[in-house]
């Protein structure tokens, strides 16, 4: 059983959450593809962490684990959305990703981002989540492995597989 000494609580935990807020927002945005859903996940994750404390060791990874589990196991399931959350946005031009891109001055740049949003959305959770983590503030494979509770070798192969799948889909979208 964890003792309180093994956990961050109070001011130290507040400081951790404040310092990781930007990272948590990016991660949950990459999970959900929606600003509102991202904020909901972060909100509940923060409450859970503040309520129960966060292990001192691997505290940053723990935050990612909480966010991921919240989205996949609770919130997304409760909302009865499809297995791939982004799937429903692919053919819909009003996804949050698209809204964010709408102010881009360059049409080519906007298309590039929209294609990325669509291709990234189509990745499975197993591929999309570690790839997103690697793209956020340079998380290392070891840190990702801890957060996802999988071996480092699996992280490595999943990210590589995600990248090549993403690239193939982007090429197809670019040809259309």
């Amino acid at each position: 059983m964890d003792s309180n000494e093994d956990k961050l609580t109070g001011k130290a935990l507040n400081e951790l959450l404040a310092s990781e807020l930007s990272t948590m927002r990016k991660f949950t945005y990459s999970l959900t593809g929606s600003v509102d859903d991202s904020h909901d996940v972060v909100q509940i994750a923060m409450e859970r962490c503040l309520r129960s404390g966060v292990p001192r060791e691997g505290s940053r990874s723990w935050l990612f684990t909480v966010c991921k589990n919240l989205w996949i196991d609770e919130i997304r399931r409760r909302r009865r959305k499809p297995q791939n959350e982004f799937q429903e946005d692919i053919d819909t031009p009003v996804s949050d990703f698209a809204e964010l891109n709408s102010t881009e001055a360059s049409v080519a740049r906007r298309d590039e981002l929209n294609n990325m949003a669509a291709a990234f959305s189509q990745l499975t959770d197993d591929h999309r989540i570690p790839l997103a983590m690697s793209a956020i503030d340079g998380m290392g494979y070891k840190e990702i492995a801890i957060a996802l509770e999988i071996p480092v070798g699996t992280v490595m192969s999943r990210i590589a597989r995600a990248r090549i799948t993403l690239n193939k889909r982007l090429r197809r979208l670019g040809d259309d």
Partner: protein
Amino acid sequence: MTEDEDVIQISRLLDDELTTAEATQLKKRLLKEPDLRELYDAMAQDQVVLAELIAKIDEEPVPDRFSTNLETTDLGAYRPWAASVAAVLVTAVATLYVFNQQSGPSLANLLEHMPTGESASFQEGKLSIVATFRSESAWCREYVTNIERGVACREGDSWATVVKQAVKKAPGENIFNAAGGQSLVQDYVMEHIKGQPLSATEESEVLGKW
């Protein structure tokens, strides 16, 4: 080296996960092998665009509820040992304020239905629900508005504030602090909470029954 192995090596290079020797060897190959270089360039470009896409959320404002959450739901501080210290103080400042009679039904409606973590406007500003918990005799909800932080408990079909405290936002800070320094609201929660604040699932069940 197989194509799959090349992809893994390039991916590790992009993530700075190769050893110096491995990176040097791969970079030499990239100079000699156009197909490998093309794959590397494409994956590197994808990485840049993906990072840009994900970073788009930085352009969105951070909800106030995060700031209030960090200050108010220092739930790690819901320690039984602190309850006795807070008891006398809280009893002295606790007020009874029936929303249905004095603030209009909209605020009561928010307390009745809005999940923790969400925010909504009501006639006196914006309200965020911070936590839902069981006290000795009622369901209670901790909330924050633009001007005050409080706890309201459900009595019959009405909501009554049992403690509240003005909040202020310090210049340059992103966190609302209790105007009086010590959080009377937090002390009240520590004194009266039975168990832990409800999880999202537990709360959803309770809200559905009211």
